[in-house]
């Protein structure tokens, strides 16, 4: 049952959509039009719908989403840059009946934290990763990330990313797809309602995989950073669709929940 259809009783109306329980009321500090906010909302809706708010622990990592512990209305742990998956491991190993997810940017996960996420996947650790790939280090002011596109200008690739300076973009899902410990793995985006709905379905499956103790799950959300892309929010959506999706095609890579049904 979708949280959105739960009637929030007032005198003469039914709620079609109201603010999710699993978000606090703290206004989010993201820049206008940044998809971090959409991603937060989707995760919160999924937590509401699965009825797991009281069992959930969010792991806020270092990036623009570092304050995730203020936004998600659940227990929370703030982890060192890149180490969310190690922290999640520590939590799940001691409290296996919690539901744990890390929320990590591409700098956090694909740069400094690559080893931790890959090893967690290899160990088939039973938690979920929400991976926000916006092709840039947002919080630190727009430097190159491992996922920055070839030719993309950032504050540390002022002439555009080149093979010589920064190498090739790293495709995290394609890497993780080779690892047997992965139970659910998908790449989604949020630049249109249909994508948002797809993304939410994937997030829900990822949590479902965790609830069913199938192992490691990760949903990559190809995201925008209008500020450091130096674009208006809608321009950023277009650039994402035109430029990023060919490097990061949307796909469900692994889905062991299906076998489970």
């Amino acid at each position, binding site marked *: 049952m979708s949280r959105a259809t739960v009637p929030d009783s007032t005198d003469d109306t039914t709620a079609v959509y109201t603010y999710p329980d699993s978000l606090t009321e703290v206004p989010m*500090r993201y*820049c*206008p039009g940044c998809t971090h906010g959409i991603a937060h909302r989707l995760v919160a809706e999924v937590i509401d719908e699965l009825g797991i708010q009281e069992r959930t622990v969010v792991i806020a990592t270092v990036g*623009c989403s570092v304050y995730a512990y203020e936004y998600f209305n659940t227990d929370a742990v703030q982890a060192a840059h890149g180490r969310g998956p190690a922290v999640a491991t520590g939590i799940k190993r001691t409290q296996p009946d919690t539901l744990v997810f890390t929320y990590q940017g591409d700098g956090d996960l694909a740069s400094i934290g690559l080893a931790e996420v890959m090893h967690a996947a290899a160990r088939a650790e039973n938690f979920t990763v929400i991976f926000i790939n916006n092709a840039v280090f*947002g*919080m630190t*002011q727009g430097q190159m990330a491992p996922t920055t596109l070839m030719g993309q200008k950032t504050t540390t690739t002022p002439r555009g990313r080149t093979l010589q300076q920064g190498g090739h973009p790293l495709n995290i899902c394609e890497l993780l797809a080779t690892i047997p410990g992965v139970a659910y793995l998908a790449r989604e985006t949020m630049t249109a309602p249909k994508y948002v709905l797809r993304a939410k379905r994937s997030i829900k499956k990822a949590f479902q995989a965790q609830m069913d103790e199938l192992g490691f799950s990760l949903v990559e959300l190809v995201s925008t950073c209008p*500020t450091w892309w130096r674009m208006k929010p809608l321009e950023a959506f277009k650039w994402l669709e035109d430029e990023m999706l060919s490097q990061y095609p949307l796909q469900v890579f692994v889905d062991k929940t299906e076998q489970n049904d």
Partner: protein
Amino acid sequence: MREEVYMAGMGGQGVLLAGQILAQAAMMVGLEVSYFPLYSPEVRGGRATCTVVIANDQVGSPVVGHPAMMILMDKIAVNNHLDRLRPDGLVVVNSSLAGEEFDRDDITTITIPANDIAIDVGSERAVNMVLLGGYVAMTESVSLADIEQALREVIPERHHSFMPVNIAALHRGAQAAMKAISPTR
């Protein structure tokens, strides 16, 4: 001579740029100067403040507990910082966003409707220049002409088309300040 000025406003209002231009001007007239900003961690929409200290010789502390001068760009800035102004200090306030009423009567208050003036000279983004102009009118370390020079250094060449607006804003701010010397003193 040691001149300490503290500026505060919302990110995007050009607080930091105003501080840098003042610092640049001071340097260009041969003074020693130190400018330092404090951002809040939000990339946008946060608060911005900066301190500029100007001196004949060594600047000494760039940190100032109770500055003698302030430029406050909006209501929040006034609420957060005005109480730290030194007794007998001088504050230049943007009355467009901060009104005209303040708690303190031991200071000199220059209120300038900077948003209105900025719109009037052609760009709301020149609010910072209006207030800076007002400030310069009240101090002796640098002149409006020095600020104009500094502007040319600090503003990237490709934005020099905005020069006239900025200069107009400066002067209008200065005029407004001269008129506005508060009677609360």
